[in-house]
């Protein structure tokens, strides 16, 4: 299976194949033999060569996986090579056009600091959410123009609810 991984800002060619119970994963030309076991939902034990790794993998979206490893979480996106090329050609790789910023926890919106049409930079605070007696700034995960606002101050939101759309 031919893929392109997009994670941490860089993309690499990835091939995955299963040969009698063992996975062969090639990343940027380097070959890994991987013995895997599912330890119930979410958690996998991987033996890569001799190295033992316990990971938790959750599907976060179409082709997007969040991988927990050693107390940290990493997001990895996998697309097929053609899609990747197409996106590069229209300069959209790692961008996927419009981006909807969601509430990553339930809470109450106490402040909305942007309006549609505003230009926002990465890390800029757009919405302030209150939960667990703390105020939390929801920041722009990429730069762009605010094309849509889904909430206004005082509203209660659930985790996952859309807050702002950036184009």
């Amino acid at each position, binding site marked *: *299976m031919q*893929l392109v*991984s997009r*994670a*941490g*800002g860089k993309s*690499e060619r*990835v091939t*995955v194949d*299963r040969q009698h119970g063992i*996975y062969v*994963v090639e*990343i940027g030309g380097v070959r*890994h033999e*991987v013995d*895997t076991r*599912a330890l*119930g*939902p*979410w*958690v*996998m034990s*991987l033996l*890569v060569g001799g190295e033992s*790794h*316990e*990971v*938790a*993998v*959750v*599907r976060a979206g179409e*082709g997007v*996986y969040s*991988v*927990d*490893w*050693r*107390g*940290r*979480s*990493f997001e*990895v996106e*996998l697309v097929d090579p053609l899609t990747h090329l197409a996106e590069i050609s229209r300069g959209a790789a790692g961008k996927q056009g419009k981006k909807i910023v969601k509430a*990553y*926890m*339930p*809470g109450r919106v106490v402040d909305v600091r942007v309006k549609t049409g505003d230009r926002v930079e990465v890390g800029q605070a757009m919405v302030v*959410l209150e*939960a*667990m*007696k*703390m105020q*939390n*700034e929801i920041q722009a995960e990429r730069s762009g123009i605010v094309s849509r606002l889904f909430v206004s101050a005082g509203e209660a939101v659930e*985790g996952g609810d859309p807050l702002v759309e950036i184009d």
Partner: protein
Amino acid sequence: MIPFRKVLIANRGEIAVRILRALREKNIRGAVVYSDADRESLAVLAADEAYRIGPAPSRESYLKAEELVDLAVRIGADAIHPGYGFLSERAEFSRLCRDRGVVFIGPSPEAIGAMGGKVEARNRMIAAGVPVVPGSPGALPDVESARTFAATIGYPVIIKASSGGGGKGMRVARNDAELAEGYRLARAEAGASFGDDAVFLEKYVERPRHIEIQILGDHHGKVVSLGERECSLQRRHQKVVEEAPSTVVTPELRRRMGEAAVAAAKAVGYTNAGTCEFLLDATGNFYFLEMNTRLQVEHPVTEMVTGLDLVIAQLEIAQGQPLGPEFDDVVPNGHAIEVRLYAEDPFRRFAPSPGKIQRLRLPQGPGVRNDSGVFGGSEISIHYDPMISKLIVWGRDRAESLRRLGRAIEELRIVGIRTNVPLFQALLANADFLAAQFDIHWLDRKLESGELAPQGGDEIPEIAVIAAAIAHYERSQRQAGELPQGEGHPSGWRALARRDARRGGGGC
């Protein structure tokens, strides 16, 4: 002495579980209350009895003083343990218990009240000879009076606006010249900002450490100090890591601080467990900050180095037992460190990360203690403090307990929510932390400057790509129906959907 047969715990989470353990060891029945958000909590599972107290919000449940005391009376509880937070430091709750004939496991309402008001507490401490941060009694009319007072308390000093706040109208002065200049500026700024240019002087404590002394007082006039805890590592005044003993506290300083804490407690007729918080400056001067009239979150580090069980001590004191000789002249044995595990995401400015803990595996083995309020399957609600568990390690010295901490952090598995574990990983890689070189502002400074940014925040380890690629492969195979039964990880992927569909947990 009245032996308790049943105690009601007016709290939740890990501290409720902690208290239940002590009750079980004393063979006293433990009853807890639960809000609708906590019906399936570890505390309810571990309790002998559990009663619904109200909806999730604290003010409608864990803060309902009247209902709690009514319940205690109804179920025949001899006493109420308030834990920390919630009602634990409300004088009126302590009084309410007394009025209703239920023993409050903590100090008297008078003692709580006396320590509750900042001004009253400060004056009583001064009267008791407990050192406080020296300050001018009132406003200083002119630079002369300021210079005179500065001379009495010594430099450095800080000039503050009487009606000030938020840093406005504040100036630090290290000598007469700076004082004259600062006095002028402070008054001008104060006048401009607050329409009142009155200013006063205070001793400026540089790079202070937060050192607190654990005390116990019984109902027979005996008050003892169990030594200090080092709690300088704070994020926005929130303690994150605590240790005992402190690397900067000598036996002689420990004795003096202990005596001050005991004097403070005696000054207000204090009983049960309490903590005197002090600021300690670089030259060994310490100043009383405030007294916490309850059990502290970080009490386990004191337990680890003294071998004492503070909650059992609380119960025995509340039953009227005198403090025995084992509480005299306690010297710390080895070194203990506690880290507070929070459901918060250090990569998102420590935003709370509520949700379901799908998997939990706590570290075990030598020198490791977990005081946890959760299990695999627990729901971390947005209604309460996001602390989910405390990890405490012990070693013969600080170096050993640091190694144990590193090992235990490696061993810990929490799946389903984000936690502040990366912060501890970063701390364990930081030279200042390893050398215990810090003050109460250190952590905020380092987080500001990004020096404690979890290592390799952006760069993705190859193993993550490998895992994702395999998961993706299996998913597509399964969709194409090409993956034979039993191959790959059907459980992983079907379960995901399943779990979302049901309330069941992911393990114990």
